């Protein structure tokens, strides 16, 4: 029997149940085992919902019923709004990290808000932000903005020639062939689930 399909994860003052891909009966057995083992803990816990990308609606309901009626636990089912709360919203005004140096191949810069780099980002470097990424220099590495779900996050650079751009879960790579410096700063944003690159101001 495969263990580990059912796990409990904390989020903003509550717990949700995370279900991985697997056979439903195994999942059900595992959930019941875990609930029984720590029933006292779960009686007091605030269970917010069930998250499982591979279970069907009916299966989800069956699990919910087991939790509510067999084990008599409280479950509020407002998982969606909790997840929304976790996404970084400060892309117009929010916490920002400033770095004044070149980021080299193999280095990773991560931050829970926006990132501004005054310097170049060399190929092989990775910048990850929950918010926006602004590079006052050449972006030749990989930049990943809106890491936890904010599709409005943008990536801007003085010289935008990245190996790859990622906003949220959308990935885009530069066109094949050598790109020369365009000459003006550019901004990458998501429109219609695609990453589009525009000049930094509309009329440039």
């Amino acid at each position, binding site marked *: 029997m495969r263990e580990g399909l059912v796990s409990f994860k904390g989020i903003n003052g509550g717990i949700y149940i995370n279900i991985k891909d697997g056979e439903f009966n195994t999942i059900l057995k595992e959930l019941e085992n875990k609930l029984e083992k720590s029933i006292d803990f779960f009686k007091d816990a605030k269970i917010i919902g069930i998250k499982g990308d591979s279970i069907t609606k009916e299966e989800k309901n069956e699990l919910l019923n087991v939790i509510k009626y067999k084990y008599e636990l409280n479950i509020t089912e407002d998982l969606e709004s909790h997840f929304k709360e976790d996404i970084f919203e400060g892309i117009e005004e929010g916490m920002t990290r400033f770095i004044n140096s*070149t980021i*080299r191949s*193999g*280095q990773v810069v991560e931050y829970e808000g926006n990132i501004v780099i005054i310097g170049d980002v*060399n*190929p092989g470097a990775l910048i990850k932000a929950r918010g926006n990424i602004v590079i006052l220099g050449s972006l030749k590495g990989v930049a990943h903005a809106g890491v936890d779900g904010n599709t409005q996050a943008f990536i801007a650079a003085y010289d935008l020639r990245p190996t790859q751009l990622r906003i949220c879960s959308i990935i885009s790579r530069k066109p094949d062939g050598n790109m020369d410096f365009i000459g003006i700063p550019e901004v990458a944003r998501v429109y219609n689930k695609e990453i589009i690159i525009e000049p930094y101001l509309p009329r440039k």
Partner: protein
Amino acid sequence: MGIGKAIVITSGKGGVGKTTTTANIGTGLAMHGYNVVVVDTDIGLRNLDVVMGLENRIVYDIVDVVDGNCRLKQGLIRDKRFDGLYLLPAAQTKDKTAIKPEQMVELVSKLKEEFDYIIIDSPAGIEQGFKNSIAGADEAYIVTTPEISAVRDADRVIGLLEAYGISNPKLIINRIRYDMVKRGDMMNVEDIVDILAIDLLGIIPDDEAIVISTNKGEPVVAEEKPLSAKAYRNICNRILGKEVELLDLENNEGKLSKILKLLFSK
């Protein structure tokens, strides 16, 4: 009591000219009258002894010294061609786990008592051998060729050196073929310096004389005619604090003015 400056020659990428550069800078500085020891830390794949033409004289090596099987003096090989020039060879029958960084630090501090310059030849890569070679170094010179893969690796290594506390490494660009640069088929000096963003110490043209001198075991820097020899002598002069214009590979004399600004700006 020597000046005691320990410089590691490293690159990340293999085959770009670290060992050749170590041998030629070491010999070049000795030609100026300084006490120099060149140290090979590429344990298991030693080459510095061959390039220096001293392999027949090896009895003890760096592992013997560090393990205490012999005294430091016994491990050092005196180069009879130049006063004050010594080699501490690597071991060939062991591998890079035979030495720890702490042992290197101790060894280098002992060497600093006897020598003005300690030039440390680093192996390729970023693992144990590399870590050993930089332990105890005061400064680093990064060698790269004008090829995108070498520059990528050099960038990685510069980042690692910064993390290990060796800042302001200097750059040596090796094996430049001016005809290819002119045609646009090879990266030029400015592009490389722009990406790596460190001070340029010197450039060395691709030169048949290096192949010949390596096979003979006689570092090219001592010869008068080859352009690469001149390039290495220029680098040695810059290390000693003298201002020397970069070789103009087109006309064999002169200027690349933007690069000069980079070179002399501090």
